[in-house]
């Protein structure tokens, strides 16, 4: 097996082991609600914070602000009857 393949394999094993430990924590009875047998790993860390490439822009700037939203207000039921 090449060194890169070995590193990938080890990283996969490490991730799976981390998930198993996390699943064992969930099943130890600390949580009150019933968990699924296929427990999803729900973390406190915002996934976007892991994948963010740079500094997050100022909170008051809206992305895609130019999207089309000029529809006639068609939801007034008092027009009917």
């Amino acid at each position: 097996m090449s060194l890169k393949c070995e590193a990938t394999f080890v990283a996969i094993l490490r991730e799976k082991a981390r998930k198993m430990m996390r699943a064992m924590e969930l099943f130890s009875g600390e949580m009150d609600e019933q968990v699924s047998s296929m427990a999803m790993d729900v973390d406190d860390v915002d996934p976007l914070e892991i994948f963010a490439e740079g500094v997050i822009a100022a909170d008051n700037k809206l992305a895609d602000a130019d999207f089309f939203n000029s529809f006639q207000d068609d939801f007034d039921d008092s027009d009917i009857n």
Partner: protein
Amino acid sequence: MDPLEALLAQIQGLSSNSSDLNRLDTVLKQADYSLRSESTRLAAILSQLDPSIHSLGYLYILEASMTGSVTKTQAETAVPIVTRFIGACSTEQIRLAPDKFVSVCKRLKDQVMLLEAPIRGVAPLFTALRKLQVSAEHLTPLHSDFLLLCLLAKCYKTGLSILDDDVFEVDQPLDLFLYCYYGGMICIGQKRFQKALELLHNVVTAPMSTVNAVAVEAYKKYILVSLIRSGQFSTNLPKYTSSVAQRNLKNFCQPYIELADSYGTGKIAELEAYVKTNAEKFELDNNLGLVKQVVSSMYKRNIQRLTQTYLTLSLQDIANIVQLNSPKEAEMHVLQMIQDGEIYATINQKDGMVRFLEDPEQYKTCEMIEHIDSSIQRIMALSRKLSSTDEQISCDPLYLSKAGRERQRYDFDDFDVPQKFNI
């Protein structure tokens, strides 16, 4: 030989089988830039091609002929040509140049909007998205444009037809935002409020690194539809919502949150006063109609509450308790609610008495069993899909390299890999 004539010959000669088409695709990519400089001659070239046989070549030339802004007169000429192409083109051929196909369809959308005839784009875009999709789970950039035209043309039922597909593949995040937002509006128009809530919820909770304008507008409608559907709203967003949305969405939707607070008091006069004071803000957002539905829903909510206390009640008493203007108005509300399945009751018009009944559903008919069974099957299929997606992501090198940097809690010495071997 003139380059354009040579290209025409190649299109006509290389459109019959897949290996020829791959060669043709390469030729067309190389000629793409020069095509745009020949825009005045392209219409004549198109007339010598069959859109169903020479779809790939036709697509490249059509796309090159549609660059730049157009007048209404030009749009009037172009729209039928594009519509005919979309209907006739070969799915296998246009999938060789999906970006070009999307570009042509988006231009069609722009042109039918310029002509103020969005309905002319509805059927062609529906055909186009079905041809572009590799599977029913694939969300294309054309889905949102199709829904946009359905909204403008008020073809809500037509728009509904694509909203029942389960989406698992998305090309661009904005495609999903717009699909869910416009889709939510389609469902509101059809009074399918539960489905609308699901779609709007998807926008609000979708991953985002900056606050998205689509998510802000979706959140406003989400608040209103929550009140209409279930009579309540909570500002707590699920844990998987991005921190950016959790921190900021409320700030952009303050009048709506205050409306929800007022709704929560159960006092119709207070709610109506709040709506009157802030009508301009809601109107600016084109949400005043939906806000009025929120007010109506409070009357319904109050009538529903009566069914939990009384077996019979007069229309006059209902009007008094719920603060309606007259027994006639109370009768109209009760009749509508019976029709919509929101309450079970009969009205005796002789003495103006309403008798509230139990839900007749026994959950033991064949139809109900079939419904429950199909729901179970669907959930099982979704569960399998989720497990498979989780497995795929767990093995994704990009995910592992990012997650590995952040995961400090479980450090197994036995699995420590020297730094130089880290991905």
